[in-house]
């Protein structure tokens, strides 16, 4: 007889809510007429809200192993889950006028988005090699599709295919590494069992070490750590901007969660082996990312490289293996989510308003005419650079404090050096916003003029509703988007001045991991 494992429905409820949401959104998308963006978006947001609510509810509950140890609901998984859900919720309004979503159908797009969110939640909870692998794929496969969902742009398709190939190489490498770790730890798939299986005896067994190396490489592909980052700028540039935003933020959060959980809990016995290696990777990543971003004119490529550099900062928090390091990592991820969502949203808005796409020209001189957008992008850039008064500063402070406390002061110095280099390109954007004149004559919009949103390049007064030709995607002002941008920006500043709530929030993560490592 099959003995069904005990299922804690309470702790699983966020997952269940998401699955239900996926089904409903898909069905509504199939049944209703095409272009029902309002209903689909509302349902998606409702699903995300339900998941967020249940996650918050679970934050108060004790940590629990779920369904025969496949998953674990603890502080780390919940905090990361909330970051991911928040990122998705910010993406949904951004997709309202998105031509890619328009083309692929809102029901399908939202289904894929929710599927990816589900994968991220599972990934953050995974504590078994098999659920780890499936969750990673559940996260990635919808994203490959979403990247390529703007089918009429060959760049989008290419970006999807590239992402698929690189992502699959990463998955295959990771899988091969998992096989070795499975073999090396004596047939264990649960993270805790792996730690026991490796123990002190096998901590430097070549089989285990090569397994660790392969898993690290696989994850490095996912979170774009140098030298496995080459795909990042290309894919970021080619994908539809809302998807880029989601990818940049949420994938990183979920992948870092499992990175931390797997390395610290399962591979803890070999920490002496992987710590220096990861530290070297982090240092290289910081330098490569920041130097790569220097000459970029495309804002999405710029943020892609900047994301590489930020991954290096975050890796620092991870490799310390301390509670404080994990707290710093999660704090940084949360701050990074707010900052990047605002930045990408501004880029998306300008992409639809001007003919410059994501080129830096698109934001030139917007300080005069679009103060809200200008301030949001400015604050995002300053926050990414880690200037005080923003959550980015506190994030760096937290990371450096953790690094110094973990005897990695030199990595702290690297973070700072990276920040210095990064200032040059972040400030270039800020200078474009405030100190350069708006481009005088906008080139003709590529493609048909029927869908040209208002007069490209010419500012319209705030408050005048955007012209929406029936059905066609419009560059008109969307108050929901502006609201989302301003909310994210305000949060960036607010957490820069009063960071304690966010620090308390991220402290759950460290506790969660500590409880998993503890005697219990």
């Amino acid at each position: 007889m099959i003995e069904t494992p005990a299922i804690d429905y309470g702790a699983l409820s966020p997952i269940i809510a998401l699955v239900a949401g996926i089904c409903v959104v898909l069905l509504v998308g199939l049944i209703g007429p095409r272009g029902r963006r309002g209903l689909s978006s509302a349902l998606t947001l409702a699903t995300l809200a339900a998941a967020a609510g249940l996650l918050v509810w679970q934050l108060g509950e004790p940590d629990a192993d779920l369904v025969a140890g496949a998953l674990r609901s603890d502080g780390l998984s919940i905090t990361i889950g909330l970051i991911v859900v928040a990122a998705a919720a910010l993406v949904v309004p951004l997709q309202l006028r998105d031509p890619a979503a328009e083309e692929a159908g809102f029901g399908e797009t939202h289904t894929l988005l929710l599927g990816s969110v589900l994968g991220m939640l599972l990934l953050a909870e995974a504590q078994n090699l098999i659920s780890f692998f499936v969750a990673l794929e559940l996260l990635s496969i919808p994203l490959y599709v979403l990247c390529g969902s703007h089918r009429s742009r060959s760049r989008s398709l290419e970006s999807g295919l590239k992402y698929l190939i690189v992502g699959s190489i990463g998955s295959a490498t990771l899988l091969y590494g998992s096989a070795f770790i499975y073999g090396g730890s004596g047939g264990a798939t649960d993270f805790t069992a792996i730690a026991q299986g490796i123990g002190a005896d096998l901590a430097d067994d070549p089989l285990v070490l090569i397994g660790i190396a392969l898993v690290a490489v696989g994850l490095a592909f996912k979170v774009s750590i140098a030298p496995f980052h080459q795909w990042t700028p290309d894919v970021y540039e080619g994908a539809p901007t809302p998807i880029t935003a989601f990818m940049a933020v949420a994938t990183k959060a979920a992948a870092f969660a499992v990175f931390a959980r797997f390395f610290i809990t399962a591979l803890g016995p070999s920490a002496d082996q992987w710590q220096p290696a990861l530290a070297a990777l982090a240092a290289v990543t910081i330098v490569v990312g920041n130097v790569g971003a220097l000459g970029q004119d495309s804002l999405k490529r710029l943020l892609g490289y900047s994301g590489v550099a930020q991954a290096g900062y975050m890796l620092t928090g991870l490799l310390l293996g301390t509670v404080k390091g994990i707290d710093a990592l999660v704090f940084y991820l949360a701050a990074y989510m707010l900052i990047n969502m605002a930045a990408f949203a501004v880029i998306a808005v300008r992409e639809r308003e001007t003919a410059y796409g994501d080129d830096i020209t698109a934001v030139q001189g917007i300080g005069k005419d679009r103060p809200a957008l200008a301030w949001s992008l400015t604050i995002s850039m300053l926050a990414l650079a880690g200037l005080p008064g923003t959550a980015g500063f506190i994030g760096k402070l937290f990371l450096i404090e953790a690094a110094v406390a973990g005897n990695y002061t030199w990595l702290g110095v690297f973070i700072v050096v990276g920040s210095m280099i990064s200032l040059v390109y972040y400030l270039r954007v800020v200078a474009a916003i405030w100190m350069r004149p708006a481009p005088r004559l906008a080139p003709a919009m590529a493609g048909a003029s029927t869908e040209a949103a208002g007069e490209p390049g010419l500012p319209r007064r705030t408050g005048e509703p955007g012209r929406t030709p029936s059905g066609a995607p419009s560059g008109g002002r969307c108050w929901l988007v502006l609201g989302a941008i301003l909310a994210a920006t305000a949060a960036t500043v607010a957490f820069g001045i009063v960071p304690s709530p966010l620090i308390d929030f991220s402290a759950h993560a460290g506790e969660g991991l500590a409880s998993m490592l503890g005697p219990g």
Partner: protein
Amino acid sequence: MEQVAFFAGAIGALGGAIAVIALRNPFYSVLALVVHLFSLAGLFLLLHAEFVAAAQVVVYAGAVMVLYVFVAAYVGGVEEPLWDAIPGQRILAPLIGAALFIELSIAVLGSGLKSLGDEGEVIPAGFGSPEAVGRLLLERFLIPFEAASLLLLIAAVGAVVLAARRPAPVDRGGAA
């Protein structure tokens, strides 16, 4: 007997793999992969993974490969590069592959792990049978099982999104 079977399978798998990357025409590459997969299924049988071997033949070598064959026939044998080649990539790539192999082999051979050299544990009856695997899937690995089914659903939706014929709106800003 077992050794003969292993070497036959190994040669088939290796030959298939090399053919996949060596043949010019993608269509033949696909067929080579089918050979590879069948040989692997044989090796899986030797490893007492009957159910997996059956799935390999039916699902993988059967269904999935049909998809490949179809697409290869549809798209044709055009080599359409996605990346600009890094100079020296063609020479470097085999070296990287060789280095990878040597490193992995060193790991395998250098491992202090017990009993890698011999057959290993005595395995219980019914090891690898559909019942045993099914029981595990529904008990310990319920979550991965369910997640995998959702993954299939999502992939289906994705395929529809990508491949469905729809009047595509005009290219917006693509050439900017």
